[in-house]
């Protein structure tokens, strides 16, 4: 009974994931073709000879009818083939996979930082509401939201790398070089998550079952941390999942500031160089990654929350 529900939920989520990925691929496909101007011409330059333009068009997969282009496009995506970079001539999928570890590590580290700071601060704020702890929690979240991450990044670089010399100035030199970028990337997320944790915890603590648990004779600490916190973490989990996706976008800026050779840099360079294959590939890849993460979060959510499984 329970396992049937779970299987059905997983099936429904998978279907949604596939539909999203199909839609993303189609949109990216249409984008390049519906935009005014000819990408091949743009790459080749205005006074290139027609044969060269035709060559580039071929390499972009933009010859033949729109239907056949679309089918080739989708077929290639299924094989994880996003074409070759126009500049380096190497397959875009290889470029992406080369750069992925840096961005993935950065995002994960930032997420760890976010969770490890936001949940304790948010819970403390809620449990000791209107106290000095709560004031600190609210101030932290206010500041974190107000200060832009690129500014935080530069500030952290100035203090900890330039002045104190604790961390490397730029480049990916192991774990150490990811700490400052992860903090500047995670701070804004952490600030939002503090609010979510706090309000969710306050709401949970105000629910009648908490009162009932108290009447049953349970001690406050057990009620707060076993009953309330566990239930309050549901919305926190949802937001965290969305934020993990958002971290990928944030990484574009942070990688630039800290000169990290990640996906964001690949994407930005692709834009500067009008390397369409790289841009398309990165967009699709990041969108897929985002959908995949959301799928996992929804799955987790369904497994934890008995109510979500049924509906």
């Amino acid at each position, binding site marked *: 009974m329970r396992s049937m529900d779970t299987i059905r939920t997983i099936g429904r989520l998978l279907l949604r994931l596939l539909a999203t990925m199909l839609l993303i691929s189609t949109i990216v496909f249409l984008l390049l073709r519906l935009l005014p101007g000819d990408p091949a011409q743009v790459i080749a330059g205005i006074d290139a000879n027609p044969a060269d333009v035709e060559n580039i068009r071929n390499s972009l997969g933009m010859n033949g009818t729109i239907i056949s282009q679309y089918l080739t496009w989708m077929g290639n995506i299924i094989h994880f083939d996003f074409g070759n970079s126009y500049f380096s001539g190497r397959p875009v999928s290889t470029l992406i996979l080369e750069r992925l570890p840096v961005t993935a590590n950065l995002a994960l580290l930032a997420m760890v930082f976010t969770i490890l700071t936001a949940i304790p601060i948010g819970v403390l704020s809620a449990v000791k509401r209107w106290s000095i702890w709560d004031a600190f929690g609210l101030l932290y979240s206010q500041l974190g939201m107000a200060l832009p991450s690129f500014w935080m990044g530069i500030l952290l670089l100035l203090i900890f790398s330039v002045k104190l010399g604790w961390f490397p100035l730029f480049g990916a030199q192991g774990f150490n070089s990811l700490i400052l970028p992860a903090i500047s990337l995670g701070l804004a997320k952490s600030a939002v998550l503090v609010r979510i944790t706090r309000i969710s915890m306050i709401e949970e603590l105000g629910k009648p*079952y908490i009162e*009932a*648990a108290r*009447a*049953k004779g*349970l*001690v406050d600490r057990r009620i707060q941390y076993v*009953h309330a916190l566990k239930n309050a973490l549901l919305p926190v989990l949802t937001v965290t999942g969305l934020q993990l996706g958002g971290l990928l976008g944030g990484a574009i800026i942070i990688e630039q500031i800290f000169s990290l050779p990640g996906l964001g840099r690949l994407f930005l360079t692709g834009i500067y160089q009008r390397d369409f294959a790289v841009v398309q590939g990165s967009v699709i890849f990041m969108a897929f990654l985002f959908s995949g993460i959301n799928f996992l979060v929804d799955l987790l959510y369904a497994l934890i929350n*008995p109510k979500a499984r049924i509906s």
Partner: protein
Amino acid sequence: MLELKDISKTFKKKGTGLSVQAAKHVSLNIPEQSIVGLVGESGCGKSTLSRMVVGLEKADSGTIALKGKNIDYRNPRDLSHLRKSVQIVFQDPNTTFNPRRTLLASLEEGLVNKGMGKTDRLKKVRDLTDIIGISYANLEKYPHQFSGGQKQRLSIARALLMEPELLVLDEPVSSLDVSVQAQIINLLMDLRKEFGLTYLFISHDLHLVGYVSTLIAVMKSGEIVEQGDAEQILFEPKHSYTKQLFASSPIIH
């Protein structure tokens, strides 16, 4: 069993300077084995009074004595003593169970807290669910999979597992269908005989209170305006407010 003396309680609304007096010098005696009915319209302070009785709210002044012994709410030992003897069934069973725990986990928890072993706990839960008419096998389910009436039975079970002598029933049937109300009331009456319980029965339904109670107290804006034997209050109400309450009740016998 339980005696309230001169209890007062004021709620202040933050920032506005406004305050509501939920209890004004309330004195109420709940004798052993009795059913004391507490009636009054919504907002008169009867729920606050019930919450003070079970220690969920502190009185500003006055004393609460359990079997002749004063209870100090600031003293954790007194409070846990009170909770062993006095339990409460809340009005809305839909919100008083943790939605993410199975009923078994929710029922068991109070016993875990008491330090009872696993086999003893499960046996006790099984015995009690038999009595209240819920199949033990169903306890693996979550709250939303039960009906309102079933949930109210379960919250009665949750309270009784703690082996209380006094059970506070805060509008135990007001959120239930009329057809289910009678079943729950009958169950409560049976349980009382079986376990020798004392009830503090709180309701705005005078008809219902008259039907179940041995003693009745009528409450109006934080004050008890009249109390006495159920029959006396039912047939010879002295206070004008009690008469008004009767006049507004649809069925009078």
